[in-house]
Structures are given as structure tokens and as C-alpha cells.
């Protein structure tokens, strides 16, 4: 095991970095998407219902099948990997963003409107900052989940630690195959922990004292 790590450490570090970067970039994309979607739907109960169903049902789609389906139209490479990771990352964030925005007391919104804030300014300066801790919780859930999904995305020859897992599994019993799989799995877990710590730190920095629990 140590020999494998020693021999491959450059490749491991590079793949880890790529894995991490794929997840973070997809999370950012997913957050933007989810918040925009939530902002569109949270005021209508019908649309909110649809959004919640979509995020619930979406999570039941097997990610492996989803990526396999995407390879047909999009080919191998980064694009299907990004689409799958971003898709799954969006769902928990969307759900939390809708809950967070809908949970703001009507009196707060009324008082924002009452002092002359426009709809958009109210959303930007009052509703989103107040919903932010809940949205961030969604981002953390997403981050944990898509770390694993990003490994599966390696099936489409996308970047990341998934490569170690797949190449190990495909020649199981062969030299260093188990080490390869373990490297991939442990690497993903370690990355997930690091990212979660970073997100907790982000939460500390971006949540004002007034709404910290």
C-alpha cells in the first residue's frame, strides 16, 4: 500500500486536486442555479410543490445510470461529468433554498417593502441573507453527496479520483488493484472532510452575529 502511494503520489495529488476542483466548481454552479430557481418559485405554493417533488424524485435517479445515459449524446469527457455532478448538487440546495426563503416571516418582507425596498432589493438584501444559513446547510449536504457522485463520474473518463476506483475494480485480483480502489475511496472521504471544514468556516465568516444560532 505504501509502495503504491509512494510510486503514484504525484498522480494521486493531481487527481485529488482535479476531483476537488470539479466538486467545488459544480457546487458553485449548483448554488447559483438553485438560488435562482428558488427565487423564482418560492412565492407560489404550486411552483414550490413542483420544485420540492423534483428535488425529491431527482435524488432517486441512480447517478451511474444517469451518467451512462449522458455519454450517448455527449460523448466521454468532462461535460457529462459536470452535468451529472451539478445536477445532483442542485437538488438539496434547491430544497433548502426554497424552505429558507419561504420561512422568512411575512412581517419582515412587509417591513422591507414598507421602507421602500423594491422586490429585487428585498430579495437580495433581506431574504437571501436571512435564508443563507439554511442554504449553506444544503450546500454542505450537497458537497458530501456529490463527492461520491464525482467518483462515479470518472466512468465517463471525467477527471478525479474515480479513475483509481474504476481501474482497480476492472482488474480486481491483479497487482495493486485493491490499493488503487482503496486510494480512490479514502481519497474521496478525506476530500469530503476537508471541503466540509471549509464550508463550516465559510458559514462562520458569512453569517452575521444577528442570525447565528
Amino acid at each position: 500500500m505504501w509502495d503504491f502511494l509512494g510510486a503514484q503520489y504525484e498522480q494521486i495529488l493531481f487527481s485529488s486536486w482535479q476531483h476537488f476542483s470539479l466538486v467545488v466548481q459544480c457546487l458553485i454552479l449548483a448554488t447559483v442555479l438553485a438560488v435562482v430557481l428558488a427565487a423564482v418559485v418560492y412565492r407560489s405554493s404550486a411552483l414550490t410543490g413542483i420544485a420540492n417533488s423534483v428535488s425529491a424524485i431527482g435524488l432517486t435517479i441512480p447517478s451511474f445510470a444517469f451518467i451512462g445515459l449522458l455519454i450517448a449524446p455527449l460523448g466521454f469527457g468532462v461535460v457529462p461529468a459536470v452535468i451529472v455532478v451539478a445536477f445532483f448538487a442542485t437538488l438539496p440546495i434547491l430544497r433548502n433554498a426554497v424552505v429558507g426563503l419561504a420561512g422568512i416571516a411575512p412581517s419582515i418582507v412587509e417591513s422591507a417593502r414598507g421602507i421602500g425596498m423594491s422586490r429585487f432589493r428585498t430579495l437580495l438584501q433581506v431574504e437571501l441573507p436571512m435564508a443563507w444559513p439554511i442554504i449553506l446547510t444544503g450546500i454542505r449536504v450537497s458537497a458530501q453527496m456529490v463527492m461520491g457522485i464525482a467518483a462515479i463520474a470518472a466512468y465517463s473518463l471525467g477527471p478525479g479520483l474515480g479513475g483509481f476506483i474504476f481501474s482497480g475494480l476492472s482488474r480486481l485480483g491483479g497487482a495493486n488493484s485493491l490499493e488503487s480502489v482503496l486510494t480512490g475511496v479514502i481519497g474521496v472521504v478525506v476530500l469530503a472532510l476537508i471541503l466540509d471544514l471549509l464550508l463550516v468556516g465559510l458559514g462562520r465568516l458569512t453569517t452575521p452575529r444577528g442570525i447565528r444560532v
Partner: protein
Amino acid sequence: MSELITSNSAESMSPEGSTTPTGITGANILLDHVTKRFPGQARPAVDGLTMEIPAGKIVMLVGPSGCGKTTTLKMINRLIEPSEGRIVVDGDDVTNMNGDTLRRGIGYVIQAGGLFPHMTVATNIGLVPKMLGWDKARITARVDELLELVSLDPALYRNRYPKELSGGQQQRVGVARALAADPPVLLMDEPFGAVDPITRLRLQDELLNIQEELQKTIVCVTHDFDEAVKLGDWIAIFNEGAQLEQYDTPERILGDPANEFVENFIGSGAGLKQLTLTRVAEVGFGDAVVGSPGERAADVLARLITAGHGHAVIVDERHRPIQWLSRRKLGRLEVISSVPDPKLPVVGYRATLNDALDIMLVSSAGAALVTGRRDMFKGVIDVQTVMDAITRSQTAAVLESDQAPVGLNTGVFQAQAPATELNETDSDGADARASR
């Protein structure tokens, strides 16, 4: 039709505008045939309401819940858009202007202040000035000035978050935020509903003090009739559909309710409520024989007999009353002591006659000592003074009725005689007033 009303209202409002005493920073407001229908409701929430709100006055909107008083309030800053009619603020028709711009120029206070929990007190207060493009230094200075105005120490409270404040403090910050850009009009929606009774009384007193200084036009919704009596220069009592039952001074509403609905709404004890309308400072109080500790009791007694009074007030070196001695007590004393009497019936000169009477009833003398600033002794008030003041205010209330601002509902009359509606209602109103 609407032109007729415009000219009519312009006439009734412009002389007031020109004779405005200096110091009034408020603007008058006119609701002109305003109707609000909510989709899916058979009856309009506000039905053809015409109401004039004079500049620099506090107008209280009261009525049972669901009567349309809050809807009426929110139509002034167009948080709720009127279905029909016009809103005129300070002579400008604001019915079609940009709602956000309008609201930046009108202060708005809701229950519990409506503060944003993720912003500090200073940021909350500075929101409107920031939207209006003030520079940072000016906003900071203004925030401190406003915190002082609502009796909060800026250094202590500027950087706190709303959750670090008590309910009363939050409400004060809410008022400060509404006043931030010095708007001529302040709208308050049950502002003191969420605080405990003692804090509520203090906030009400403070609002009156602030109003004395700033003289804004304040429109305030409440379901508490006693609050309306205490705060209002004018009280508008609404029935369902924002039907204006009576729009008059507190004195006249208490002394001369327009109909049974108003009577029921006032509830029992109208006479006692009148006592809350007058402050001790407004009635005359008698002077007293004053002595100080260390004096010989016989000297004071001699002065007492010369003046023909029954009691002498002993004050300390800062002129605060400490004892109130009868002739009998003085006769038994050698030298007057400096020990304060804890049960002294003392009432502040800003207190209402209601408070004064309460203290008098408790005290054996049937009178109370009035103190002014820094608890300095000012005079003596007795039951007879209070009775006289009530009689006077009742007679005065009937006389001052013709200054009442315009307030009527046209929705009802419209169906019967659309062409002569205004004249009819006008003369109706005049008749009704004359007959009172």
C-alpha cells in the same frame, strides 16, 4: 365629480397649509374616494372612503378586527394598491407614482419594529438614507442622532443586533428607522402591540415627546381604544368595510359618541377615560405653605394659619417635597425633621388627571403634591380642581367641533344619488355636527 372634491379638499386644506405654525414638519394626506376590493371577496375591504389627515397631527385608526383600518393605512404608502380613488400627500397625487420611491419618503413602523435580524441597529436605521444616496458620514451622524432621539445610547446600541435588544428597544429602533430620512409622514401599524403594558406606556409617552419635537403627521392603527385616546389628536372609528362611524377629537368621541356602535366600542367608563386626556400641567394647581427641615414647627404653623391652609409642605435643599404636615402634626412637633415620608402623595406634572386622582384617593388628604422637572415641588392639586377641569373640557369639546377634518364614506350614498352625493353627505355631516 372628482373635480368637485378636489377643489373642495384643496380649499379645506390650503388655508391650513398657509397658516401652518412653524415647527410642523408633517404633510397633510387626503384619501379621496378610496376603495379596495380584494379578489374573491364579495364586499370591498374599504368602501369609498374620503378622509383628510391634517398635517402635524396624530390620527388614530381604530375599529374591530377586519374592519379595514390596516388596509386603509397600507393604502397611504401603497403597500396595498387602491382599486379606486386617489391618495394625495402634501398636495401631490401619489396614486400613480413609483411605489418604492413613495415609500422611501414615508416612515413605516410595524409591530415589534420589523427589524432585519441580520443587520446591526445602525445598518437597520441607515437603510433608507442609504437608498436615498446619502454619504457614509452623514448616515453615521444621522443614526447617532436618531438613537439619541429614541433614548438609546448610540455607543452602546449602534453595533448590536436586533436579537440583542429587548422588545421595547427593538420598537424604538423601529421608530428610529422610520424617521431616518426625516419623512413628513409616519405610518404605524399596531406599533406597541407586542410589548408588555408597562413598556407600552413608556413608549407611548416617548412617542408623544418625539411628536412634540418633530410634529410629523402620524397615522396609527390600533385596536386599543385607550391607546387611541392617549395618543390621538383625532380618532377615526371604523366599522366593517372601513365605514367611518366617527372622526373627531378624543374629547368629543368620549363626551358625545356619534352612535351606538361608537358607544359600544368605547365600552364602559367613558367618563374615567376622559381623565386620561388632561395632564396635571394643564390644570391650575394651588400654592402651598412651604417649610424646610430644621425650621421651628411653630413658625411654620403660624404661616399656615396666616395663609388659611390646612397642610404645609416640607421640601429638602433641592426643593423636592419630603413631608406633608397637617396643623395637628405641626402642633405636636418641636423642630421639623429631614426624614422623608415614603407615603407622600406625589404626582408628576406630566401625569394624567387619572393618575392624579388615583393618588389622591389613596392619600388621606384628598389632594396630591405636584412635582415638576427633577422632582421639584410645584403646587398642590385636589379633587375639586380635577372636577372643574373635567367640566371645562366637556364644554370646550363641544365648541371646538367645527375644526374637524373631512371624513366620510361615499360608497353608501353612491348607489342612491350619484349626482348629488357629495353635497348630501356634506350637509348630512354639518347637520349631524350642528345637532350635537
